[in-house]
């Protein structure tokens, strides 16, 4: 197991380098350079030339990449490893690490909610295939899937915040009020729902087809034929196997969760990584954008690794 994890980590290195090269190249396509904001009458041409030399901007691109890349991985130890924000001059490491927990709160709560809701729904739809329950679940899943996250967010905002006034419409806690846990939960509710509903739609469809496939297997028929009670066949024999692909789904959902987080956080002004990304793109704060893409890439890689390891853990047929 340990060697497998190690091997997967080593395999991830070229992919990480690939992500870095692509992001770095795209950022370098940006018009102008970081010294542009100093270019005014008051700063002499000589100072700017010095700055360019200081930042290493006169070196060839591959050399710039290597120095950026080696500095990047020192982030646990150096606060200037990812450079400084163009907007407020704060170290990018600091700006990003204070947002990561907020985004994880949102994403993980949504994932848990997704699993709690979609697995039973998918199983129900599969077991009672072609029944009314199945038709309703499948239709809801199709509609939920077709609702883009911003439409869904606005809809939830309108119903629960504006019309019913049940939940607050922005932020993590009520302004000018002592932050309390119930207050925090009330703020978390709408963003989590808006992020989870789309995932639930996809997951329950997936769960349904996974369960349907397992129910057709010979061993399920055998279990029924030898007289085991239906519920036992369902939960002990079928569900266990139908759940396996869900683990892969866990890893694969991360990119769409991150994308959803960017939009959901913007709608509900949830101060996380997604909102920071959107704000940084708006203000052309390239060091922050670059770092967020890298962090996002690492999350996706890590998510897939965790999913693969988990898969091996629960499925004895998989050998490392």
């Amino acid at each position, binding site marked *: 197991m340990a060697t497998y994890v190690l091997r997967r980590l080593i395999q991830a290195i*070229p*992919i990480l380098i*690939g*992500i870095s090269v*692509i*992001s770095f190249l*795209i*950022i370098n*396509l*940006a018009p102008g350079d970081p010294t542009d904001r100093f270019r005014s009458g008051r700063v002499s041409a000589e100072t700017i030339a010095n700055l360019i030399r200081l930042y290493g901007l006169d070196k060839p691109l591959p050399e710039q990449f290597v120095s950026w890349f080696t500095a990047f991985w020192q982030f646990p130890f150096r606060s200037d490893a990812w450079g400084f924000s163009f907007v407020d001059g704060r170290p990018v490491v600091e700006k990003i690490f204070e947002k990561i927990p907020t985004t994880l709160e949102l994403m993980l709560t949504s994932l848990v909610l997704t699993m709690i809701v979609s697995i039973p729904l998918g199983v129900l739809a599969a077991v009672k295939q072609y029944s009314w329950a199945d038709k309703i679940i499948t239709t809801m899943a*199709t*509609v939920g*899937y*077709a*609702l*883009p*996250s*911003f*439409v869904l967010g*606005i*809809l939830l*905002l*309108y119903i629960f915040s*504006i019309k019913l006034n049940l939940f607050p419409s922005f932020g993590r806690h009520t302004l000018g009020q002592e932050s309390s846990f119930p207050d925090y939960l009330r703020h978390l509710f709408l963003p989590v729902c808006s992020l989870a509903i789309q995932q639930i739609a*996809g997951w329950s*469809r*997936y769960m349904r*087809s*996974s369960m*349907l*496939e397992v129910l*057709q297997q010979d061993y399920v028929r055998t279990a029924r034929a030898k007289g085991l009670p239906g519920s036992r066949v369902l939960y002990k024999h079928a569900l266990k196997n139908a759940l396996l*692909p869900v683990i*892969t*789904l866990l890893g*694969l959902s991360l*990119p*769409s969760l*991150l*994308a959803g987080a*960017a*939009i959901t956080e*913007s*709608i509900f002004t949830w101060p996380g990584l997604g909102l920071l*990304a*959107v704000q940084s*793109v*708006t203000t*052309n704060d*390239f060091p922050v*954008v*670059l770092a*967020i*893409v890298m962090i*996002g*890439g690492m*999350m*996706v*890689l890590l998510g*897939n690794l965790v999913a693969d390891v988990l898969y091996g853990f629960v499925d004895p047929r998989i050998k490392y």
Partner: protein
Amino acid sequence: MERIDTTVATRTGATTAASGGDEDEVDLIPVRTYWMLVRQRFLQHRLAVMALFLMAFLVAIAIIVPTLTGDAYTKTSLSKAMQPPSLSMPLGTNQIGQDMFLRLMKALQTSLFIGFMSVVIIGLIGVTLGALAGYYGGWVDNVIMRFVDVILSLPVFFMILIIVAVLGKGSALVVVIAIGLTGWTLACRLVRAEFLKLREADFVQAARALGASNRRIIARHILPAALAPVVVAATLGIADSVVAEASLSFLGFGISPPEASLGNLLKNFEEDIQVRAHLLVPPSVTIVLVVLAASFLGDGLRDALDPRQRVESK
């Protein structure tokens, strides 16, 4: 998400449709070509046929209405600001007096155009790279597939954001490029899989024996046989691209006013939702309709193009 769904649905589709006894029926049924069968299977799929009509309708009004009314959708008139829906202006006006019906039609045109164009780019890149990887194998395959791995590990939406930020916000061309450059991996893998399967097929061997060049074999012999999954993926891809464009414009990085897109009609939601929520309904519904039409159309095409699916004889 779409990616996962596709594979599962194809697999279950294949198992349920595995049919025996076709050989016995051969003599009884009049000869039907592949495309006749495809059409028949498609027509049996009621939702897909409805989706086709819906899509055709959406495309038609998106072309006709803005062409007839010219640039009236940008015209502001403060005396007509914030009017409720009426006979002459079925969706009312916004706070600067623009006719929301005309804006919606123009937005539909823009969003569909960007959606279709992105899919064209996705198809071009995906088919080319997939064909090369599948046909040549070896190091070509290795390089291309590692590249695919990298793109798949990127947080796609952030990547689109970064490209738009660098190449310029607010341009339709940039949006198309950003969606196209990040979205081709599925098409590439599908085409590669087909090429891997077909490159050793008898008809390819025959072509090779007749002295056909590699380029001719790829373009003339294998590609037509390998396109079915790409057509399906492209149709489903329209939905994804339209949503991606709308999301970008919603966040303010895609199409910006005075131009209209399904996303930027919702951009002002914080204010609109309080006082004129009715303005938010038509664009939202339209996006959902586009997505539903594209996905049902894709589902129908997938079943229709799958030669293993049975056709019920009339």
